């Protein structure tokens, strides 16, 4: 069996981390290809149900990244998001989501190096957690024996 390659769903703010990913690309900074990016207008747009949906559909990790506090394109979106993240992080950690499966960061569009380092760190720590078996939705694992 091939080595486990984690799948991570990444929610990036359009105005910063998404730009940082672009800059990392044009700067030829290599980073692991294991994440699928969902572009948000602001981390304030992130509804906790998006994160649950990612885990339910089998994502091995979720990475949320936006603008540094004070840099929000919409002035205060990430300040509000930060309070939501505090709650979300505490609840998911308490009910047993390994801390490394759910990561948050602030990366501006100029920080291509930070993006590269963070991307590597996120993917490697999710890899260490192993595949997401516990937060995956059971019904979607089709019992093919039952079908065929």
């Amino acid at each position: 069996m091939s080595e486990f390659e984690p799948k991570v769903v990444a929610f990036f703010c359009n105005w910063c981390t998404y730009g940082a990913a672009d800059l990392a690309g044009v700067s030829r900074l290599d980073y692991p290809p294991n994440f699928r990016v969902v572009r948000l207008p602001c981390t304030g747009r992130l509804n906790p149900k998006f994160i649950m949906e990612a885990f339910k559909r089998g994502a091995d990790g979720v990475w949320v990244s936006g603008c540094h506090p004070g840099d929000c394109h919409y002035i205060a979106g990430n300040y509000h998001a930060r309070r939501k993240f505090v709650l979300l992080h505490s609840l998911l950690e308490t009910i047993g989501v390994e801390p490394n499966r759910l990561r948050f960061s602030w990366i501006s569009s100029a920080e291509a190096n930070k993006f590269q380092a963070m991307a590597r760190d996120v993917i490697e720590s999710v890899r260490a957690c192993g595949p997401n078996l516990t937060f995956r939705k059971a019904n979607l694992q089709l019992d093919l024996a039952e079908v065929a």
Partner: protein
Amino acid sequence: MGNLETITQKIREKAKSLLESGQAEVVIGYRAGTIPLVAAPFFARSAADCDQLVWSSFARLNLANYLPNRTEKVALVAKGCDARSAVGQVVENQFPKENLYLLGVPCSGLVDPAQVAAKEPRPIQRATESDDAITISGQGFSVDIKKAEVLRRNCRTCAHRTPTVANELTGPEAPAAKPDDFEDLKTLLAKTPAERLNHFKDLIKDCLRCYACRNACPLCYCPVCFVDETRPQWLGKSTDPMDTMTFHLLRGLHCAGRCTACGACETACPVNIKVREFNRVLDKTVQENWAYEPGLAWEQKPPLTVFQPNDPADFIK
């Protein structure tokens, strides 16, 4: 006359005068239930109705739940948590303050039927109460149980038994209980993620997804709940354990910083799930991070509507 009868008397008198003077068009309170250990929500609109109003330690629902979308002037018979939830409804613009009269009841904690059943498994036909004890009887037995031994968990750690905001109190202030120290959660947090997950999976394993916890909650007034959304459908309708878990997690998150620990959710749950565990995790986080308790004043700003530039969040790198 015991304290409970005095309060009942006071509620009836006040209800009548409020209806008569037009200060209220409906008084929302409790009547005696049709089965033992239950008091039922009751809507009094006439003097005759008012004579059915009672106060008892079986008044476990949160009557603030009946405020949103109501256009009448309401007098609400409110124990500490109900009053806080009603204030929350006003703060969240779900009910106009000028239409609300809070008839505050100093509460000494409510009785949990599950704990009564644990002490007395025989079928109960009748239950009466005095200030500190309930008397339950059935075929060939009659037993006294001290209320303090069968109070709901949230009542045992209620710091605001007497309404903090009310137009009028129906009796002398009730002594506050020792607030929740979250000791059990701290012990739980010391365990491994897998153990914690098992704890919470076990907690909700009987869940029928009837959403009684949501419907009994005065915070849940969304016109369309996320569980009922269909485009897209965020939550499967089956008994899939992850869908059930997602429901409980998101329900908890929606209540964060707003929950007054009234316990109506646990009261309504037909399979006795301690659904408030999820809320308690978040209560603890809210108190630790933003030192906030909801529903204590009209001017309060809920913690998720405000921020400080230097809010702590060390886990964000």
